[in-house]
């Protein structure tokens, strides 16, 4: 147990509840003075939610935050900054149209006789940036500089304003290797000055390069905090994606029988810059699981199969006949369905009713000249509300009022209503509570038994193990391994990701 006095920032038992899901469940997080602390977890693990609770962007529902041993309650990001907690995001949160100096001093420009003293402001800006090995023309607009430099300017502003804790949320995502080096030099310098730095990323090599300690979150819960020096990469990955329950679920299930004909065959299918060419065969009644860390090319694989991005190499066949999947419309015509990852932005239309959301894709396929009659719409909606057990007062309720799990089921219903034969699900259980998880998993099982072909992407290894008949492992935008039959275990998957990863880092 660490003593409180050692910690610069202590978050104790932080709770955060969103409608339908518990985003943070009694999470502890301790940051020491002069350390770089990596905060890791897959999408939806609660990293950003935790950061937003620390910076006051979200109001937490429970728990305490101590800064320098004193309890604080940041009301908003501005307030957090005043207390000493500064944040820099992946997308630089500065104003591109203002000059570098104005960005650094916005709201606190030096004044003389009531007017902004531009000369003094520019001098102070130059002096400030000297600490960051930058020699810029501070009178130029910020957007005349590269993202990396904008990033450093954002850090300089955050440190100058807050000066105790610096939170870096995916700062390296759009930087090249050289720029990352520059950023790391600056981070080390700030660390030497005694700042506590929280570093969020999904590049594990960078974590091992810069972080002193690592905290892992999964499904809104704390998995653990470890010293980087003593944490094996393999152990870290299994902390991030979990495996404890997998073996049990798998053991409890009969081995499904997939000996049917191959229905979908993709050869050398790929797109430059998105996903390297891969081969994929999917039979009727088969669930192909896609495993890999964030950024390994999982979603890219789904998008290219569905035609959301056009493949620039390879061929696709459906039932032995070659097809062109150049747009989602074409893919839908071949009875493909795709539930995207982010249901808030790419899935539900919040203000439309449950019924309207369910018939949306079917109507789109039929074209607007052939509307589905209201009776037919009601029948479809009622059928799926019953079949998928969507908890809603009635079918006319705006979908945004439903919980996350029920929204997810409504989106599934939307695609099921088009009677797809090949259904692609990207993170179907993201951000929904554990009970709803199990229902979605049962649903996938049910669809497979009816003879549908499915491709499911998930960060939850246990889940993949539970329902997949075959698992493809991705890393660095390549398909690197395929697991079948009794090789589908959490250990094998973690092994495949980790070994690939070590090779990648070497």
């Amino acid at each position, binding site marked *: 147990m660490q003593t409180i006095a050692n910690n610069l920032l202590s978050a104790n038992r932080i709770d955060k509840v969103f409608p339908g899901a518990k985003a943070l469940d009694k999470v502890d997080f301790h940051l020491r003075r002069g350390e770089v602390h990596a905060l890791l977890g897959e999408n939806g693990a609660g990293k950003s939610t935790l950061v937003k609770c620390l910076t006051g962007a979200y109001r937490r529902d429970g728990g305490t935050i101590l800064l320098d041993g004193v309890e604080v309650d940041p009301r908003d990001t501005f307030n957090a900054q005043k207390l000493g907690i500064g944040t820099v995001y992946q997308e630089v949160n500065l*104003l591109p149209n203002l000059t570098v100096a104005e960005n650094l001093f916005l709201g606190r420009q030096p004044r003389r006789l009531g007017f902004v003293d531009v000369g003094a402001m520019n001098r102070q800006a130059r002096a400030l940036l000297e600490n960051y090995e930058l020699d810029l023309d501070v009178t130029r607009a910020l*957007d005349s500089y590269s993202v990396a430099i904008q990033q450093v300017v954002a850090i300089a502003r955050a440190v100058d304003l807050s000066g105790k804790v610096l939170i870096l949320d995916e700062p390296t995502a759009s930087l090249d290797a050289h720029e990352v080096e520059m950023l790391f030099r600056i981070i080390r310098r700030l660390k030497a000055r005694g700042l506590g730095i929280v570093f969020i990323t999904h590049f594990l090599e960078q974590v091992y390069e810069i972080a002193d300690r690592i905290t892992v979150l999964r499904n809104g819960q704390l998995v653990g905090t470890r010293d980087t020096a003593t944490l094996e990469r393999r152990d870290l990955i299994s902390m991030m994606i979990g495996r404890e329950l997998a073996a049990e679920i798998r053991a409890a299930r009969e081995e499904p029988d997939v000996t049917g004909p191959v229905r979908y065959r993709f050869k050398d299918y790929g797109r430059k810059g998105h996903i390297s060419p891969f081969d994929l065969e999917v039979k009727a009644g088969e669930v192909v699981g896609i495993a890999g860390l964030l950024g390994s090319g999982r979603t890219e694989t789904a998008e290219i199969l569905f035609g959301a991005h056009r493949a620039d190499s390879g061929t696709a066949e459906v039932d032995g006949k070659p097809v062109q999947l150049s747009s989602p419309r074409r893919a839908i015509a071949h009875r493909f369905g795709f539930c995207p990852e982010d249901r808030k932005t790419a899935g539900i239309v919040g203000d439309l009713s449950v019924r309207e959301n369910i018939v949306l894709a079917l109507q789109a396929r039929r074209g607007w000249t052939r509307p589905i009659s209201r009776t037919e719409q009601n029948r479809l909606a009622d059928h799926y509300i019953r079949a998928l057990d969507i908890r809603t007062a009635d079918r006319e309720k705006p979908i945004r009022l439903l919980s996350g799990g029920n929204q997810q089921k409504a989106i599934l219903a939307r695609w099921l209503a088009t009677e797809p034969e090949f259904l692609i699900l990207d993170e179907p259980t993201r951000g929904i509570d554990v009970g709803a998880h199990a229902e979605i998993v049962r649903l996938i099982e049910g669809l497979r038994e009816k003879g549908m072909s499915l491709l499911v992407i998930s960060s939850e290894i246990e889940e993949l193990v539970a329902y997949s008949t075959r698992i493809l492992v991705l890393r660095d935008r390549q398909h690197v391994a395929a697991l079948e039959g009794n090789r589908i275990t959490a250990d094998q998957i973690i092994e495949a990701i980790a070994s690939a990863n070590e090779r990648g880092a070497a």
Partner: protein
Amino acid sequence: MKPKYLPLTATIVIFVLSYALCAAQYPNILSTRVIGNLLTDNAFLGIAAVGMTFVILSGGIDLSIGSVIAFTGVFLAVVLDNTAIHPLAAFAMVLLITTLFGAVMGAIIHYLEMPAFIVTLAGMFLARGMAFVLSIDSIAIKHPFYGTMKGLYYKLPGGGRITLIGGLMLLVFAIGILIAHRTRFGTDVYALGGGTTTAKLMGVPVGRTTILIYALSGLLAGLSGIVFSLYTSAGYSLAAVGVELDAITAVVIGGTLLTGGSGFVAGTFIGILIQGLIQTYITFDGSLSSWWTKILIGLLLFVFILMQKGIVYVSRSERRHA
């Protein structure tokens, strides 16, 4: 040169070139009389355009100013015609009304999260309607003080006159430039134009700034209305129709991005001068229909919009190679 100065430079180059062309044909156009008249004739538009510049810099729009000018004129005419109130007191009253009017629109835009276009469109109908309620007739203003003020001018060498209203416009521009570039409020206006969400995250008082911007626009529209009533010596509820569009044109020709965040108050001044110059040329020519003004302005506006796109493209590729 920094890309942000490109549109302003282009505007100045176009102005100087067209002035030179006009002067080559009609050397008289260089006389101080013409210049004095240019300022006097465009004083009310220029003052309103300064307010519009701030609004557009912040990423908004104010469609109400033409109506506010008309309302101001009718209000002054009715008050001076029917009461013994001194014009200066009437000016203060009407400026208070128009400033509050702008502030209320700003508050609605900010607190109800409504698009500026709709809110100020409503304001446009409201102000015009209020003008009609006051009077549907064109009322002449015969107050002796008006005569005194119209008689005030600074004589330039060569016989030209900087009238009170022309001088007032120059003063408003000077103050506008100072506010835009030398105050925290000015930087906050640019910040809003760069992105409201980011500005808020960086601690810009978004609500206060928005209200102040529209209040400023209302104040200047009121001042413009006073100048217009001095210029025409009358108040008429159908006056100044479409002035807001002329003001927007001057702002855009002056090099301010319609999407906000980039531009200069000084550019708007050149924009006003270009519009005035075209008008003057047509007066000199005598045979051209005054609609040629609109045609030329339309073409110019189109060229400027294309140029802004081009500049955005150039500065992007410049950054890629940086």
